[in-house]
């Protein structure tokens, strides 16, 4: 009886305390920030007008873990400890976790994930906008099992369409905006199997530009538009074996074609002529190495500016394509530098659009086999060594944590890849131990984080990715959703009465 009575008193006391600002911790900046966040969330109102514009940002391979690494990197680049930094997309009022598995893959690749977002259905690994009743590589079956894309739907509404990527414009994520393919590798005709009647992906882009579906396409991938024997402006040869020069064909069809930062900057956009920017033979450069090519933010700015002249609105798919490639290489430095460039593009889009009429979605297509060690003190560089936390202060002590082998270790690592500590021996077995490591070596731009399983290329993972959204119907995102649901929110937002 006494115990129950005491419990009742405690509950009453707590109720009173939480409704007042006289708690002993009330002056703490943490407490004040928490209260401010409550006020901010209470003020959030759903926007239920029809979306005039939709922008879908995808950073390839930038799942929850990779996004965390980019956040810390960006915060430390800004002079802080990193953890408390807020990326532009992290200010959006709505978020969800996204399940990225494909029809046949616990671990997806970028083809079915992009297809899910662009057509509303999951499909098999390796396939783009073709239903999963079809087998990979089955050109004949694929010809009658294509999905209609969001770009085609909004084009019929009179909206303009832009597709941007720092990967090849024929690579899986951008290709899913405009193409259907039973194999993502059919980027030009040289990879089409004999007898396959499906058009290659570069050819499909040209068709969609001629049809008025795609208005602006910017990325890498010149090699897939030029025939073998013909060299591009950087002396790299085309790959097509059908003798067709799709750059010439695009120009003849009225498109403006540009190849570098200079002609891109000089370009007059927004006069209704389609624009094809092909800034590299293959992928555009990593942001770390970029020279003579526009940044993702610059491409984003020019495209929004040009397509904003359409009073019916636009859909733009914008991909940071190389977070993925740097993760594949096991080189976290280039992954986070490209992740920051991706965030810069998002900031530019936020600045140039209005949340009242533009739905912006920021997500990733899949995660990687990246993982994070502990227990690192605050301010440990995200690409550097895990430093000891300081019990007498905030920032780490500057002394690295040591593993059981007596050696320091980095904050981040990969489960597999080229950074494996197991090295192939002369007898083809694998053996090894962790190399010793200094902070200077770890933060070098070319350093590969240590990995466990030896592989030539680090892999994707099936882990969830985050999604952030603002604008009309962004509130339909919440909880844990399937990746193909993204299409359905976009479609609802542009169709809502």
């Amino acid at each position, binding site marked *: 009886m006494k115990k129950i009575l005491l419990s009742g008193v405690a509950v009453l006391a707590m109720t009173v305390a939480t409704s007042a600002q006289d708690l002993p911790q009330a002056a703490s900046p943490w407490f004040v920030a928490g209260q401010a966040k409550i006020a901010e969330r209470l003020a959030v109102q759903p926007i239920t007008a029809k979306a005039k514009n939709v922008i879908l940002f995808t950073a390839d391979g930038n799942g929850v873990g990779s996004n965390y690494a980019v956040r810390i990197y960006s915060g430390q680049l800004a002079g802080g400890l990193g953890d408390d930094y807020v990326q532009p997309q992290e200010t959006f009022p709505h978020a969800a976790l996204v399940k990225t598995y494909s029809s046949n893959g616990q671990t997806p*690749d*970028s083809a079915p994930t992009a297809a899910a977002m662009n057509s509303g259905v999951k499909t098999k690994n390796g396939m783009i906008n073709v239903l999963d009743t079809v087998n990979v590589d089955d050109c004949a079956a694929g010809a009658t099992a294509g999905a209609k894309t969001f770009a085609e739907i909004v084009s019929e509404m009179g909206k303009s369409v832009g597709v941007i990527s720092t*990967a090849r414009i024929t690579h*899986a994520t951008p290709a899913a905006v405009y193409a259907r393919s039973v194999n*993502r*590798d059919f*980027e030009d005709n040289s*990879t089409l199997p004999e007898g396959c009647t499906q058009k290659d992906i570069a050819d499909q882009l040209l068709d969609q530009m001629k049809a008025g579906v795609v208005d602006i396409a910017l990325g890498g991938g010149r090699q897939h538009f030029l025939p073998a024997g013909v060299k591009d402006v950087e002396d790299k040869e085309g*790959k097509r074996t059908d003798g067709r020069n799709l750059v010439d064909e695009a120009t003849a069809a009225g498109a403006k074609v540009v190849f570098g930062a200079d002609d891109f900057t000089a370009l007059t956009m927004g006069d209704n002529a389609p624009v094809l920017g092909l800034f590299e*033979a*293959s*992928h555009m450069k990593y942001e770390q*190495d*970029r*020279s*003579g090519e526009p940044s993702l933010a610059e491409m984003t700015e020019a495209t929004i500016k040009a397509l904003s002249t359409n009073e019916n609105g636009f859909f733009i798919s914008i991909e940071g394509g190389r977070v*993925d*490639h740097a993760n*594949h*290489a*096991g*080189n976290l430095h280039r992954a986070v530098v490209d992740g920051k460039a991706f965030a810069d593009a998002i900031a530019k889009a936020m600045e140039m659009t209005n949340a009242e009429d533009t739905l912006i979605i920021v997500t990733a297509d899949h995660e990687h086999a990246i993982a994070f060690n502990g227990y690192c003190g605050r301010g440990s560089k995200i690409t550097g060594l895990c430093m000891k936390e300081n019990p007498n202060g905030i920032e780490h002590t500057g002394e690295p944590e040591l593993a059981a082998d007596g050696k320091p270790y980095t904050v981040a690592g990969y489960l597999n*890849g*080229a*950074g*494996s500590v197991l*090295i*192939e021996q002369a007898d083809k077995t694998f053996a090894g131990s962790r190399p010793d490591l200094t902070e200077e070596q770890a933060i070098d*731009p*070319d350093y*590969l984080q240590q990995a466990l399983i*030896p592989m*030539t*290329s*680090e892999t994707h993972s099936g882990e969830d990715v985050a999604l952030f959204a603002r604008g009309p119907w962004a509130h339909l995102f919440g909880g844990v959703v399937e990746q193909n649901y993204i299409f359905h929110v976009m479609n609802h937002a542009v169709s809502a009465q």
Partner: protein
Amino acid sequence: MIRRTFLLALPAGLLTLPVRAADDAPIKLRDLYEKDMSFSQIALSRQGSRVGIAGFMAPPLKAESVFFVLTKLPMAVCPFCEPGSPWPDDILAVYAKRVVDVIPFNVPIVVTGVLELGDHVDPELGFYSKVRLVDATYARA
């Protein structure tokens, strides 16, 4: 272990040795190029000299050859990124003194040889290179 013991045993007058070693430290492959892929001042100033360059041995194109490609990062072939696996721009062609004894692609090595700059197409392999180390030896870093 042995080297450390040896250095500790050196007379004080010989302690300048590590400083000289630092001067001769291998050049990083990335230091040969500017961002626009033109040659750096370091590369131009060392042309024709014998230099050591750090990097990784890409899996050789041909067995029993004196030729291999040195890469800045381990040549991690990405099956989803590069069908046909084109080479990165910032590589270096190595012509070794002896037939190459392959070192795994992800083991850091230092190659020492005479630095050659300028376009060259290998007459046998057809491999185009902008920069080479010839008469080269190599070892794990």
